[in-house]
């Protein structure tokens, strides 16, 4: 199974600024000083092999959208943030007009998680079938109302694809789109839902927009069970722990520290930090990643958790 990240930013899409680009250029040229980079091949080797990751890359700025690709002829997604636009364009380009089915599991309906749907080109094309699953009673209304006046020029009724909405109950396993899927209610304004996807002995957790209260050991244990033995945990780590329990308490997000602790308790194999704070630049996210890897290392108790930080375009093979 391959997990592909199309959008990883939290709260609102962001783009690199001129100052960000300049900072990267200065860092790259500083690192290149004194080297003989006089051919494109040498330059490319330097960029790909030696330049710091956060200088030669970007974590990206699209809001939440993750694809689970198990080799099926249909698409399985989590959330419809701005990242789904890229997935839709990619699907159209590779399928060359052949219709497809899309199965979308929604964490919740806050704007950053639905805003990509009006720009999801497969929705406009007859023959495509899009099934949107979620636990909120207002799921369909939330998706519909962002289309049409006064918010958007195209009415929902004008979309050419067949679009279905399926309400799920949390804590109940379903067999959907080739996966055993279980949803779990999470603490977030208006509630959000995490998903546990199981298939062929592999387990992927999608748990974003989820605040964890530290004075509720029963809730902590319940999440550890939900994450139990997962191969990959995609985890909302938008804030520092200090922010998440002080000035940003009840804002509905979690931290890298809690992500490490829950994955250690659950004996999960890979923590992938997700829903990055929109005010963080690449250097800051890279610094958080380095710190989180260090935290995992110094608090490890016989079980190693791989730690990564999601970026738009990242692929993880399980």
């Amino acid at each position, binding site marked *: 199974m391959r997990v592909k990240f199309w959008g990883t930013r939290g709260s609102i899409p962001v783009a690199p600024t001129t100052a960000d680009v300049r900072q990267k250029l200065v860092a790259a040229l500083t690192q290149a000083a004194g080297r003989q980079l006089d051919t494109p091949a040498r330059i490319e080797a330097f960029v790909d092999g030696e330049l710091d990751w956060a200088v030669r890359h970007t974590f990206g700025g699209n809001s939440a959208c993750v694809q689970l690709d198990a080799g099926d002829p249909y698409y399985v997604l989590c959330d419809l943030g701005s990242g789904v636009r890229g997935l839709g364009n990619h699907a159209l380009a590779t399928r060359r007009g052949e219709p497809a089915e899309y199965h979308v599991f929604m964490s919740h309906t806050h704007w950053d998680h639905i805003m990509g749907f009006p720009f999801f080109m497969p929705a406009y094309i007859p023959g495509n079938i899009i099934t949107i699953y979620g636990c909120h009673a207002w799921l369909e209304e939330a998706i519909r109302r962002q289309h049409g006046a006064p918010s958007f020029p195209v009415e929902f009724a004008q979309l050419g694809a067949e679009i279905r909405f399926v309400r799920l109950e949390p804590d109940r396993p379903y067999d959907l789109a080739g996966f055993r899927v279980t949803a779990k209610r999470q603490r977030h304004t208006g509630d959000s839902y995490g998903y546990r996807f199981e298939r062929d002995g592999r387990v992927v957790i999608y748990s974003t927009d989820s605040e964890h209260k530290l004075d509720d050991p029963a809730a902590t244990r319940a999440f550890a069970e939900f994450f139990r033995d997962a191969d990959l945990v995609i985890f909302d780590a938008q804030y520092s*722990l*200090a922010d998440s329990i002080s000035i940003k308490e009840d804002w509905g997000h979690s931290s890298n*520290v809690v992500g490490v*602790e829950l994955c250690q308790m659950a004996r999960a194999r890979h923590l992938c930090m997700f829903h990055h704070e929109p005010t963080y630049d690449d250097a800051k996210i890279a610094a958080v990643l380095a710190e989180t890897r*260090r*935290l995992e290392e*110094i608090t490890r108790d016989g079980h190693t958790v791989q730690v990564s930080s999601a970026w738009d375009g990242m692929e993880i093979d399980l």
Partner: protein
Amino acid sequence: MILTPVRYADVVVLTLQGRLDQSTAEDVRTALAPHLERCAEGQDHLVLDMAGVDYVSSAGLRVLMLASKQAKAQKGYLVLVSVQPLVQEILEISKFTLILRTLPAVRDALAETSPAGLAAFEPR
């Protein structure tokens, strides 16, 4: 987790021992409560000696944050001393160094906050 109080004039030094994690956090919070009540302007100063603490989890950090918050609201003095390097790293990674004040040793806290406490602490 054991909390051992020692008084030096108007300073109470609480020595913590063991792991401050989800299984001990609430006990520590309960044990801290009476000391925190008196950690106020014109009353006791509170020093948490962390030399014997080898791990602090998020639940433990929350208890320390609540203690700091209460002391601040009461205009009291609360500081952590003798924090082990590993715990210091956890404080830094979690950004708790922005919330909790640390000093190298008990003596530094006494020297900073209470001449009477320092006099009681220094060997004669």
